[in-house]
């Protein structure tokens, strides 16, 4: 039966904490720049930002190896970056350039970076939950200690694919960690309008696997909870579900008029911003001083600027690629 463990008050080592903070700044600066570029019509299409959720991406992905697969939904920039996707290739992808992670054919909602284990993202809510089950089944058939992590939002939990995937992962005891980012909104409506079950971890109550709900803006807590699950999954156990309570500080998509938002919650979550919180913690712990802290942000901004420059230098893909890449051929081997 479900075991509850609390990770609040968890401790991070200094170098781990600093790595997470740097990763979160890279995601934050990248996404803020993407928002500006979107308004300037330099990145295309539907853009979903994860500002406010960087802590989960960093605390989960920075513990995984390149050969551990992750899947994500439509809000995937942070996961890909934290897993190791180069910023320049990310930016180029969002700009539809040949130098992008998907050569400009996927865009924001379909990021793939196999080299670093970013196996895919989807534009259909819950659409790739079973793909992650397949990835974990592959790990099991292969016989190694690889682990798969599946990122999804609370909106995906009401989709049939969720129940089918959870049953199979539990039945076959697959090394799969479900990571739900419960940000309080399914697109434009609050969770209460979608389900009577407030906590996503309670939706898997019928299945006897481990689950835990943590404050997603408490980075040490996410790190600690995921670490415990990861240790078990490496040992061949699974699945588990980690629910991270976060807040989507921007609209569902860039340009969303957001008439559904509650100002009180806004203020509360601004106070709980994971980047600021971890930074304050880092200073408090003496991992770095105020100047060094500010330089972390500056370095991230520089990196994003460089990424933008490299992306802009990348050419658009040859239009004929659109027809060439419909079918895989013998020559196509996974990167």
């Amino acid at each position, binding site marked *: 039966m479900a075991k509850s463990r609390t990770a609040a008050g968890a401790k991070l080592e200094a170098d781990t904490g600093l790595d997470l903070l740097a990763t979160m700044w890279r995601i934050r600066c990248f996404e803020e720049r993407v928002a500006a570029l979107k308004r300037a019509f330099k990145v295309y299409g539907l853009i979903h930002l994860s500002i406010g959720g960087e802590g989960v991406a960093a605390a989960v992905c920075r513990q995984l190896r390149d050969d551990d697969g992750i899947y994500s939904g439509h809000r995937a920039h942070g996961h890909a970056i934290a897993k190791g996707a180069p910023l320049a290739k990310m930016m180029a992808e969002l700009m539809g350039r040949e130098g992008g992670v998907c050569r400009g054919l996927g865009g924001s909602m379909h990021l793939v970076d196999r080299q670093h284990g970013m196996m895919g993202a989807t534009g259909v809510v819950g659409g790739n939950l079973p*793909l992650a089950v397949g990835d974990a089944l592959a790990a099991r*058939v292969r016989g190694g200690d690889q682990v798969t992590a599946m990122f999804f939002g609370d909106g995906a939990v009401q989709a049939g694919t969720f129940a089918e995937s959870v049953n199979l992962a539990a039945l076959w005891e697959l090394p799969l960690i479900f990571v739900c980012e419960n940000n309080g909104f399914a697109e434009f409506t609050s969770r209460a309008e979608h389900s009577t079950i407030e906590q996503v971890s309670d939706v898997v109550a019928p299945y006897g696997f481990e689950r835990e709900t943590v404050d997603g803006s408490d980075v040490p807590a996410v790190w600690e909870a995921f670490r415990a699950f990861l240790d078990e999954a490496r040992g061949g156990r699974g699945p588990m579900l980690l629910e991270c309570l976060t807040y989507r500080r921007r609209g569902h998509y860039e340009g969303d008029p957001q008439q559904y938002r509650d100002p009180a919650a806004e203020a509360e979550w601004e106070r709980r911003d994971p980047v600021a919180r971890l930074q304050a913690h880092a200073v408090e712990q003496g991992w770095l001083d105020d100047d060094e802290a500010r330089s972390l942000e500056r370095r991230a901004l520089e990196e994003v600027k460089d990424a933008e420059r490299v992306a802009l230098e990348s050419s658009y893909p040859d239009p004929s690629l659109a027809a060439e890449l419909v079918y895989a051929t013998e020559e196509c081997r996974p990167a």
Partner: protein
Amino acid sequence: MARELPYIAAINEAIHLEMARDDTVLFYGQDVAPSDDDDFVKAFSRDRVRVSPISETAEIGMAVGLALAGYRPVVELLMAEFMLVAMNQVVNEAPRLHLMSGGRVKVPLVLKAGYGFTAGWAGQHTGSIYNMFCGIPGLKVALPSTAADAKGLMATAIRDDNPVCYLLHYLLVLEHGDVPEGEYLVPFGKAVVRREGGDVTIVATGWTVGRALAAAETLAGEGIAAEVIDPRTLNPLDTATILASVEKTGRVVLVDQGTPHGAFSNVIAAGIADQGFSSLKAPVKQVTALDATVAYSEPMEAYVLPNEEKIAGAVRQVLGSAPVAA
């Protein structure tokens, strides 16, 4: 060496051979080997052969995930209609990921399902819905009509680097035919001329190939030489073989077990109109199922299906009609 095998055994033989040849081929689905006393389980273990719940979306979605992780799953779906439960995975995930990744991932998997079971199974298990899967870029569609093709197309489907809907015809499962032993591959996109003739071209797929050949035999008695072409895969489609035949005969009858609106025969007809119009001596005629959900009761079920008489009648019509000005 070839020997006689039923169509269904030929399919299993292909899967078995491919699993023996390539460790990454997996086989699972509803009611696949619930008992350990099963040839596949005994040969390849429970890791590679699994019985799954009735969760089509998860079954097909997992196949996509397995494929992305380097495996080649064959998913047993029993009935083509069961894929409709998981349309997102079939249409919007599996065939799109290769292109959207800029060619950096591939999704080799086989969705094995039966169709066209007009044997009193009423409206939800008798459809010939292959046309629904043909308009999807990235998704290949194979429709074997003989035991040999059943084997050869399955082997090719498994080796293909893309998602393939392998649709076997339920009325053919016990039909015997010569099947080559050992490795046997039938290429995709290569039609076969099942019978040669110079007066009219009949294009048919799956079970209707046999009906077309029977009609051709009847017509031969009337002095009409019909050529019967079986495309074997609808995507890719071997348009060249069809056009070459039309150039020779100038007259075409297209047979399709699907319903007329959006039938695959419409696509072939459009291709002929586009690229072979000057060869035509008569309008293109299509013999499809009639526009209705298949009814349970036998007289009604038979009434809506294409058959030998309808095909022969259509041939007589195109031969009797006035030439079309080119």
